[in-house]
């Protein structure tokens, strides 16, 4: 199975990297871009097993390690489970 985890900054938290990318895009002439937020994308290979159980475990990994709840939120998908 593969878990794809998306970690993003909470909406109130300033994202200087996103802002810088936005700025760079504007100066390259991409005026249609109205906002950019940068997050993390974790791709995890998981030994096959019960996707439901995997879900719980990944939830836990996110909460404990992968995301920092003070500033970040996360969501994930599991692919290729039976």
């Amino acid at each position, binding site marked *: 199975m593969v878990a794809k985890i998306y970690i993003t900054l909470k909406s109130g938290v300033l994202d200087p990297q996103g802002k810088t990318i936005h700025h760079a895009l504007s100066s390259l002439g991409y005026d249609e871009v109205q906002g950019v937020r940068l997050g993390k994308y974790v791709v995890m290979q998981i030994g096959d097993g019960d996707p439901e159980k995997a879900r719980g475990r990944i939830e836990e990994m996110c909460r404990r390690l992968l995301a920092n709840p*003070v500033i970040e939120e996360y969501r994930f998908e599991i692919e290729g489970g039976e």
Partner: protein
Amino acid sequence: MRCGVVVFPGSNCDHDCYHVLKHVMGWPVDYIWHKQKDLKGYDLVLLPGGFSYGDYLRAGAIARFSPIMNELNGFAEKGGLVLGICNGFQVLLESGLLPGAMLMNRGLRFICRYVHIRVENNSLPFTGSCKKGQALHIPIAHQEGCYYNDPEAISEMEKGGQVVFRYCSPESEIDDRYNPNGSSGNIAGVCNRQGNVLGMMPHPERCSEAVLGSEDGRLIFSSLLKVAEGVSI
């Protein structure tokens, strides 16, 4: 004052802190390998700067699961003194021993230079030798040092004296111009409610000897001396 300096894989100011505690302050000090599980007998545990686990993922995020951190929780609860400097501060935030989180500096770059910080709370074991409002001349060296917490939490912290240092001008003026990294409220250091756990981004160990250009950092360590001597604070 018996001290321990924790060594995580990737710590790199461990040696500097050891040197200052031992040779400048003259205290007994041990390195504590992060897999160690015992903090008995220590008065002060210092989490040094560096890049624990490369600061990969987020600064301090992985180190906080080291076996020693379990022990450190208990140590702090019992009132033991804990000082986290730079990466050590980040580890304390990640572990929840201190409130808040760190974001990337607003300029996105690593910054190494001298700044000034104002002492907001001088009634802690770590700040008793400072004057309230005093500006300390002290170096910073970090890329993820933009302190963040939600506004209510910060005002709670302010009420409780938990905001210990803020970036300021040489004359102690607080203004965004003197904020090197975008920290909320110019915050450079915070403590827990009980005041026995302090985290700070600037490096007092880098300015504790005249030959290095400033001795302001020694005030942090000599404050502890007062504690050691039992002077009430």
